[in-house]
């Protein structure tokens, strides 16, 4: 076993072990143990990410374990967001009073489930088999549904139930696609569904296309791509803020990576253009559905949820275009979206403490009463809207340019138009949320604000680095590796 394989196994085992410990630990030691246990997996994830990204031409490709450039990107994102979500969780637990479980077991079960969810998420980019990837994605549903409904309020129960039923049904449809593929792979059975074996499918291109469509439709239900996105705004808005951050910044792109791997593996069988067109259609559909909602006054977390729908659409478009420029944009977009979106969701904890109505109503003029909170929310929203110098501006330009480069002028033009409309909607929300008319609010300290301010400072530095490094990506070895995938 190589050192990379050992590191990868340790990366999955550590948070899983922490989950078990947190479940049985006395409640007094749970918060400290949770914070301490977050550091090793995050450090390991970043190490593996660095290994994958500094040597993108030498991927690790096994039957059950892979580590390539795309997986490395996701590992870094999941590691960072997971760490931050654990560290900001005490503020959420201190400010919320309701729960799905008994008060005395609340902290232990929350952290154990959060760690379990994190462990499964970290495994998704590393897994080398489509069948095993499906199992992991399905397992994220069980863990994260509990977290979505963790607040125990009627709204949280509704959101958690919808999420559980819709994504499980969607994944059932995806599994039908996997079984269809398994029937036509010479290596045989579901165990032969390694990423590199998929291209050996010999059951005919028509059946392969049917299987690919079922797979993508099922995975789209989990990614939250339109038209199967109904659970997304509800789950993101009702989950505890640290969980919403993990859902949006880590879960959605991790499942999108599985769809990307399927697209690359099945392109030789189904036809590259056909596989890409399906992703472009999902991407444009998601953008078209999300943009009208970005123009409306929505509660903070619901606004961020529709922004997730928009950004997953942009990433799907970039993957669908598949050209070097578009893939450079995808790489930046995945990381920058994660940083900006996680910051936005983390800001929801102090926001709800300061303005309890923010869960169900739009908020205005936060910077007038809480300048640091308003600044953190403003940074998140400005970055998500693609306001220069946000790295999301650079990535969107690269993806649109990549669309023209790949010979999809109509889709690229539609993308540019929809992204511009989305920008206008979010820019309006940015002004209203931060410096709009402010109703009278109670002064006083708000729990979690210091942590969010620290995250905001780190996020600004990270995003500026990302925007600056974006110019080096087109034509780089990393983009070549993203184009090749695991072939």
């Amino acid at each position, binding site marked *: 076993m190589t050192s990379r394989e050992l590191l990868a196994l340790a990366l999955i085992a550590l948070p899983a072990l922490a989950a078990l410990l947190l479940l049985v630990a006395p409640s007094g030691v749970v918060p400290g143990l949770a914070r301490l246990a977050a550091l090793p997996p995050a450090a390991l994830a970043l190490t593996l990410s660095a290994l994958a990204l500094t040597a993108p031409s030498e991927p690790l490709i096994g039957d059950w374990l892979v580590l390539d450039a795309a997986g490395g990107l996701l590992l870094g994102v999941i590691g960072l967001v997971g760490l931050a979500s654990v560290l900001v969780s005490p503020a959420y637990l201190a400010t919320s009073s309701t729960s799905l479980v008994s008060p005395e077991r609340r902290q232990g079960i929350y952290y154990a489930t959060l760690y379990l969810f994190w462990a499964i998420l970290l495994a998704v980019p590393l897994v080398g088999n489509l069948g095993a990837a499906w*199992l992991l994605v399905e397992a994220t549903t069980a863990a994260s549904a509990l977290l979505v409904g963790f607040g125990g309020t009627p709204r949280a129960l509704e959101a958690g139930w919808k999420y559980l039923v819709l994504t499980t*049904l969607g994944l059932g*449809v995806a599994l039908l696609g996997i079984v269809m593929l398994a029937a036509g792979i010479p290596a*045989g059975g579901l165990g032969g569904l390694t990423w590199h074996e998929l291209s050996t499918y010999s059951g005919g291109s028509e059946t392969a296309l049917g299987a690919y469509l079922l797979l993508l439709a099922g995975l789209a239900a989990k990614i939250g791509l339109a038209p199967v996105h109904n659970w997304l705004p509800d789950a993101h808005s009702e989950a505890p803020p640290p969980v919403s951050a993990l859902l949006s910044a880590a879960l959605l792109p991790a499942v999108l990576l599985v769809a990307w791997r399927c697209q690359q593996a099945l392109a030789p069988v189904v036809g590259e253009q056909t596989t890409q067109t399906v992703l472009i259609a999902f991407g444009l559909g998601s953008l078209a559905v999300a943009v009208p909602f970005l123009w409306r006054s929505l509660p903070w977390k619901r606004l961020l949820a529709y922004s997730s729908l928009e950004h997953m659409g942009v990433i799907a478009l970039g993957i669908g275009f598949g050209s070097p420029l578009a893939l450079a944009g995808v790489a930046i977009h995945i990381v920058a979206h994660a940083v900006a979106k996680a910051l936005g969701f983390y800001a929801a904890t102090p926001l709800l403490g300061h303005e309890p109505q923010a869960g169900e109503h739009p908020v205005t003029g936060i910077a007038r009463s809480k300048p640091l909170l308003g600044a953190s929310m403003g940074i998140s929203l400005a970055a998500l809207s693609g306001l220069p110098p946000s790295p999301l501006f650079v990535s969107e330009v690269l993806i649109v340019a990549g669309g023209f480069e790949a010979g999809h002028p109509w889709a690229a033009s539609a993308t540019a138009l929809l992204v511009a409309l989305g920008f206008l909607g979010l820019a309006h929300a940015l002004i209203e949320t931060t410096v709009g008319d402010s109703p009278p609010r109670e002064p006083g300290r708000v729990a979690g604000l210091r942590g969010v301010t620290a995250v905001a400072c780190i996020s600004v530095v990270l995003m500026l680095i990302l925007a600056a490094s974006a110019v080096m990506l087109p034509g780089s070895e990393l983009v070549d590796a993203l184009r090749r995938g695991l072939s």
Partner: protein
Amino acid sequence: MTAQALLLVGFALQKAESSGDILAAGALALRALVLAGLFFLLVSRTRSVRPVRARVAPLARAGIALALALALTWLVPVIGLDSRDAERGVLALVAFGIATAALRRATLFQVIGIVLVENALALAALQLPSGGAVAIELGVALDLILVALVAVVFYERIFAEFGTADSATLRTLRD
């Protein structure tokens, strides 16, 4: 639903050629019995005062499910399973599962719809020309049990909160 899964177990044991096949059949049996036990316990702990009325009348529901099954068997090309009849059976079961989850208002029936879809996929895995992988089949069984456990937690809490297991009460989140 349990009888259907146990029928599949019998079929799997009849076809079994290796210890791996027997283990996979065992996983399917375990899944069927655990789910049956869970749902039985759930129903006995949460007695509804009156049954949840279906959103769509039974005949219309049957018609929609049949139409969906016919559409799926027409739309989906040859899957490549051992027999075309098995393929049609798989697709019909998937359609019935989706229709059950979409058209029934009782939350428990929505979970039963999911289990129907999973039973269809178990049948498909049994009919693969080269057989399924034991590890994956064990994983699918474990995943479904986990999802069902979470569903049970939600179901009990929804029942306690709203006094009914009617999914119509879960429609407050709208934009």
